[in-house]
């Protein structure tokens, strides 16, 4: 009887597994090449104007920014319809930070701090250079504000970072700046 029971168990297992198997292999019936699951930044599209991510990736002066955006999981965000204005510090601007600051921020445990800094460079609206006015404050994605000063047509942010060039992207504006903006210390 014990043997019978074992056989019974075995049979039940076979049927359970055969059911499971059919579920597991029910992955999909598609045979055409699949779209990517990797997020909006990876959409294959050579027809559209470049989005902010593609503009930054295409700039040899922004390799540090791109690495930082990747580390902070912000690449797909900036391929979203937005619209965004991104103040994009150059590699040189990052180099001006105190030694070790960036390496420290790139550590996994500092991801939140890195996100905070990078989000302080983004606002959710598309602002062309001629929109900026002296004394204006702009609310950034991280929740803090920056202050704009305009003197003789030259735009400076927080009194320290100058806009050196502006690029229109499909989903907003990229203003290249020569210093990293540091959010105010947490209260």
């Amino acid at each position, binding site marked *: 009887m014990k043997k019978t029971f074992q056989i*019974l168990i075995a049979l039940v297992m076979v049927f359970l597994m055969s059911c499971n198997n059919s579920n597991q292999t029910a992955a999909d019936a598609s045979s055409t090449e699949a779209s990517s699951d990797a997020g909006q930044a990876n959409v294959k599209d050579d*027809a559209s104007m470049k989005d902010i991510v593609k503009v930054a990736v295409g700039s040899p002066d922004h390799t540090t920014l791109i690495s930082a955006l990747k580390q902070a999981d912000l690449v797909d965000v900036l391929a979203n319809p937005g619209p965004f204005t991104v103040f994009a510090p150059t590699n040189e601007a990052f180099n001006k930070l105190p030694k070790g600051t960036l390496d420290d921020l790139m550590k996994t445990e500092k991801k939140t701090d890195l996100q905070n800094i990078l989000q302080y460079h983004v606002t959710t609206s598309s602002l062309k250079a001629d929109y900026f006015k002296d004394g204006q404050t702009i609310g950034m994605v991280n929740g803090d504000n920056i202050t704009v000063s305009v003197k003789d047509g030259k735009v400076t942010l927080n009194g320290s970072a100058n806009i050196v060039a502006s690029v229109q992207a499909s989903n907003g504006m990229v203003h290249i700046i020569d210093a990293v903006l540091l959010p105010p210390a947490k209260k």
Partner: protein
Amino acid sequence: MNKLSKLTAIAAVVTVVGFFSCKPRGAQSVVGGDAAQKTYVAPGKYDEFYDFVSGGFSGQMSVYGLPSGRLFRVIPVFSVDPEKGYGYSEETKAMLNTSHGYVPWDDLHHIALSETNGIQDGRWVFGNGNNTPRIARVDLKTFRTAEILEIPNSAGNHSSPFITENSEYVVAGTRFSVPLDNTNGDVPINTYKQNFKGTVSFIHVDTSGRMNIAFQIQTPGVNFDLARAGKAKSHGWVFFSCYNSEKANTLLEVNASQRDKDFIMCVNWKKAEEYVKAGKAEKRTVAYAHNVYNETTHSATSEIEKEVLVLDPKNCPDMVYFMPCPKSPHGCDTDPSGEYIVGSGKLAAVIPVFSFTKIQKAIADKNFDGDYDGIPVLKYEAVLHGEVQKPGLGPLHTEFDADGNAYTSFFVSSEIVKWRVSDLKVLDRVPTYYSVGHLSVPGGPTRKPWGKYVIAYNKITKDRYLPTGPELAQSAQLYDISGEKMKLLLDFPTIGEPHYAEAIPANLIMKNSQKIFRIEDNQNPFAAKGDANARVERKGNEVHAYITAIRSHFTPDNIEGVKLGDVVYFHVTNLEQDWDIPHGFAVKGANNAELLIMPGETQTLAWKPDRIGVFPIYCTDFCSALHQEMQGYVRVSAPGSNVPITFSTGKNEPTGPIAQNK
């Protein structure tokens, strides 16, 4: 009971339990256990086929994915579509122009995908307007209606738009015979036999897709139902099924079913071309609209054409033959080899299959059974390959796979029957739920069927879905035909009433799909290519607002100086150059619809304000995080007002004292 038999019994019980637990239950048990696996297309994965499905009385064409049955798009063709502004915007109204004026609805029954060498090529898909005779061409780069051509001398363009194997022609046979357009139509209806004529039209398609009516053939006053072009060896011929050879003009239900046999009309169109070239065609004065949408000006134009060439078989021997076909034939389908023509008499007990080789021999031997209105009738037995005996009740349509099998739909017995073309043997049958009309195999009407599935398009769904009151969805049902037995995999509701549909491998279309319209190519005369060109101008009682749209504002978004009695034309240009970023445009109280403007495109909404006040405008398509901020105002003043035209964005700052609480 010995140990062994006990074990067997237990095993049997377990087997039964296991069987039931794996199998779907209830009415669904006709579905194969692996149906889910075969139709599941995981999120982010693509379907294998596009399926272009006629919308019937919706007037539109829908696009599904197979095998998932997911709906991707409804392409507006013959009916207005307020969602897309189709037929409402100034640019698209002309698409629905006809010799009867603006006709904002039709009944789209049949689909024809363009072909090269008898193989689907993915350039265009054609559809017929059944009510006010028209043929539309949809461009498969943009999935938009590119052209609509009205058919003169026609009434009920049902036998249409069937295509030849190099897309030389799409054909259009009239369902209703009528007094032709250039004759006096004010005749008693019961003079049908004297005064009513049929026509079939051959519409030439050039390499750009542009259609023109090359010639028509005037025929006896029968009803044309469906058609198929020959292919391979029978290329150069088109076969039209026709009923009402009795020429009844009332109660056709009874009076058009008197004769044992009606006809399939065989047309040698290469011969017809020779007659046209030889000047045998009569030029007749008619009027029909020819509407073309231009993707550079983003506008349609409509022209009324005035002439058509008509061939009369009386003056053109060897061009047209009638082939007897039992009992009111409906479907008339040619197999992939081009040798066999299958007629489906709606009321017939057999399916006759005709042989092209035998047709040619009967013609050569003049093996005729008299004539019908002067057109030779081929002897039935001389052209018959054979009959499928007792296949089912109410045969309608037949499609083919690449292995010599045919699949015929049966409306009355609600089933699909698979049979072999060579020996006419019935191989398998499956029920449909319920009352199937058309059916389709991917590539089924071509020289190269892709096979794999047959899809039934059902008229009746009664208890198949959650009930939605008296009006129920119609349905498509997908069957696996890769094995010997057909297996039901899936059903899904459809848009309108599906008649014919054609499926095509996705890779023949998706690589050509357009993403944006380039703004520098925009030749719409009302385009504002950049904010610097945005403006508002008065021209008498017309106010033209040239507006740009880009995330997330309109330029201008404050407009003043409109007066009651003006007509305001909002010419909105979407400046985006980014895939999948349309902007919408709507104004409160407009008596038409919204605009939905693709990247790089300009569309115009005409608005006649009906009262004084301030009217909001806004973007209707969730374009961006600040979509809800994408809005503006139009001020409408009294007729005699001296408020000047002004317009701006971001400049019209608040003025005057701000009320304060004291």
